[in-house]
């Protein structure tokens, strides 16, 4: 492979709140290679969606948000563009073409008053300059490709005439319209029935194989991660707290938070098994804890070193990073299945 298709460096996002700026994302960095799937995992408010919207430049403009860092996207011709530094028009030319996104709510993410064919074709018409007829032809192909039967007829359907799963397929078709190099999928299955979920995941995986696109898959559900991701990046309170290959992170999480997330996955093999959850809530970004942001909810918390300062991201193995002062201690002391389970 010819190097990463997307490289994010030191991405930080802050929201203006009155005269202050409330930080939402700190110094996020990652790389994405063609054909690779990176799962971005975290609770609500962890900053994963903000990260993706910042990459897409879909956050409100400057005075309301402050975005710093770089997001280098490799263009079709091999040139590298910094998504965060380009003028709006240049970003628009890449958005929907080289980098595309699908959203969590298929029910509301489609425009209710336009036919889905037109909505899919719209992107092609703009990026490829096709006329309406040719664009619709292509849309029909895309609809078939995302597994919707009777494509020619569906083209003329309105969103409200489709089920949630169908709509998400339409969203995917729309995102794939211009063969993007990077697809960001923000919780694409959360709002769907479980059976539909796996269909969509399978579809995404299949399409990725066909096109070789890089996939950033955002979810709060680690069960899904295991199915789809090559690498995992866990976020908490706007920071990456653990990242690495899917196997090491899922089997041997080093960050207590990651461990908690894994434990909270409902398991089909445990019949009637109790749901495990992490107590407490995500800290208010306006008043973050002084040290480790997870410390207030962490079973392994020690005032020292946990509350002293924000811990740095440390290497915990090959390509496996973790943001915890005590990861080594905890790992040494604990059994493979972390202690959180007991707290249920």
């Amino acid at each position: 492979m010819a190097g990463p298709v997307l490289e994010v460096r030191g991405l930080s996002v802050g929201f203006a709140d009155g005269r202050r700026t409330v930080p939402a994302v700190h110094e996020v960095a990652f790389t994405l290679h063609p054909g690779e799937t990176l799962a971005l995992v975290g609770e609500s408010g962890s900053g994963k969606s903000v990260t993706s919207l910042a990459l897409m430049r879909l956050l409100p403009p400057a005075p309301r948000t402050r975005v710093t860092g770089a997001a280098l996207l490799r263009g079709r011709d091999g040139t590298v563009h910094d998504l965060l530094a380009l003028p709006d028009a240049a970003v628009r030319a890449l958005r929907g073409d080289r980098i595309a996104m699908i959203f969590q709510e298929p029910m509301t993410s489609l425009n209710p008053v336009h036919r889905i064919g037109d909505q899919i074709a719209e992107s092609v018409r703009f990026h490829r300059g096709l006329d309406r007829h040719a664009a619709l032809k292509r849309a029909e192909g895309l609809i078939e490709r995302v597994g919707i039967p009777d494509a020619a007829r569906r083209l003329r359907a309105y969103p409200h005439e489709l089920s949630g799963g169908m709509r998400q397929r339409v969203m995917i078709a729309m995102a794939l319209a211009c063969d993007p190099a990077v697809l960001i999928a923000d919780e694409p299955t959360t709002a769907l029935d479980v059976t539909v979920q796996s269909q969509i995941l399978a579809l995404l995986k299949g399409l990725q194989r066909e096109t070789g696109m890089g996939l950033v898959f955002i979810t709060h559900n680690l069960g899904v991660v295991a199915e789809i991701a090559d690498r995992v990046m866990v976020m908490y309170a706007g920071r990456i707290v653990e990242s690495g290959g899917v196997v090491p992170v899922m089997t041997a999480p080093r960050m207590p938070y990651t461990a908690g997330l894994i434990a909270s996955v409902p398991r089909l093999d445990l019949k009637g098994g109790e749901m495990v959850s992490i107590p407490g809530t995500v800290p208010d970004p306006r008043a973050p804890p002084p040290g480790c942001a997870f410390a207030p909810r962490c079973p392994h918390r020690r005032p020292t070193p946990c509350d002293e300062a924000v811990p740095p991201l440390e290497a915990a193995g090959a390509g496996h990073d973790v943001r915890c002062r005590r990861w080594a201690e905890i790992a040494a002391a604990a059994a493979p299945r972390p202690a959180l389970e007991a707290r249920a």
Partner: protein
Amino acid sequence: MARFLVSRLAQSLLLLVLVSVIGFGVLHLAPGGPMAQFALVPGMSQAQLAEIAHAMGLDQPLPLQYWQWFSRLLVGDWGHSYRDAQPVLAVIAARLPATLELMGAAIALAVLTGVTVGVLGAVRRDSAFDVLSTAGAMVALSIPTFWFGLVTIYVFSVKLGWLPAGSRATVGDASLWGYVHHLIAPACVLALVEVAVWSRYMRSAMLDVIDQDFVRTARAKGLPERRVVLHHVLRNAWLPMITLAGLELPTLLGGALVTETVFTWPGMGRLFLDSLGYRDYPVVMGILMVSALLVLIGSLMADLVGAVVDPRVRLD
């Protein structure tokens, strides 16, 4: 669809009957009457007056008068004007086009301006433009239309001499410009309140839509902002506006009456005032019925058009 139409029509007819009862009651229970004009005829004796009243059916009990009027209405006979003996429908029909012209121009102006201001205000929310246009709309809603009309005449006709002071056209000048020239001031005055209403509604409808997910989807496609706003936000936001157009009809008609008075516009509103002065009951009732009819048709049309342009709505 058919069932919807039938039930709506039935409801509208019921409303029309109610309207006619209320209108008839208000008019006929009040003091004064059409006999005043006959009483001033030289040599008219009280006995002759009584004869005329009898001939006009004015001496009968009110419910009976109503029934006679209404049963004639049912067969399409709206009666004759007491004043000039012409059929009421002909009298109204002669005046309606002027009113419709004024209303049409005003609504076109109001929709165009109001929608633009509302869209810009929503897109640039909290900008100076937004704050000023919102406050401006509120003030526009508060200016008495007749006063604004007077000031307009004073400034643009009397002081500056740019616009004609009232009337629909200069007699003998049948040019299009002649008509447009006369239309400018009254249409603007009538449009003022409507611009305010439309921009406020448009802005809030836009804001309802602008934060929705599908707008983000459109942006994610890399569409130019212009297209996002016009094709995606506006296309959704103007759907409730169609209903508004229906709801605004009574206000607009009322505003037209006021504007017609100030600008001596030869429309239905002016006729209404003149006929009230003469207690020309058949004409006054006719105008009330026609305006109620317009209002009902307007709201029905708004529903129908709304259903046609909004794929989500099914009428049944």
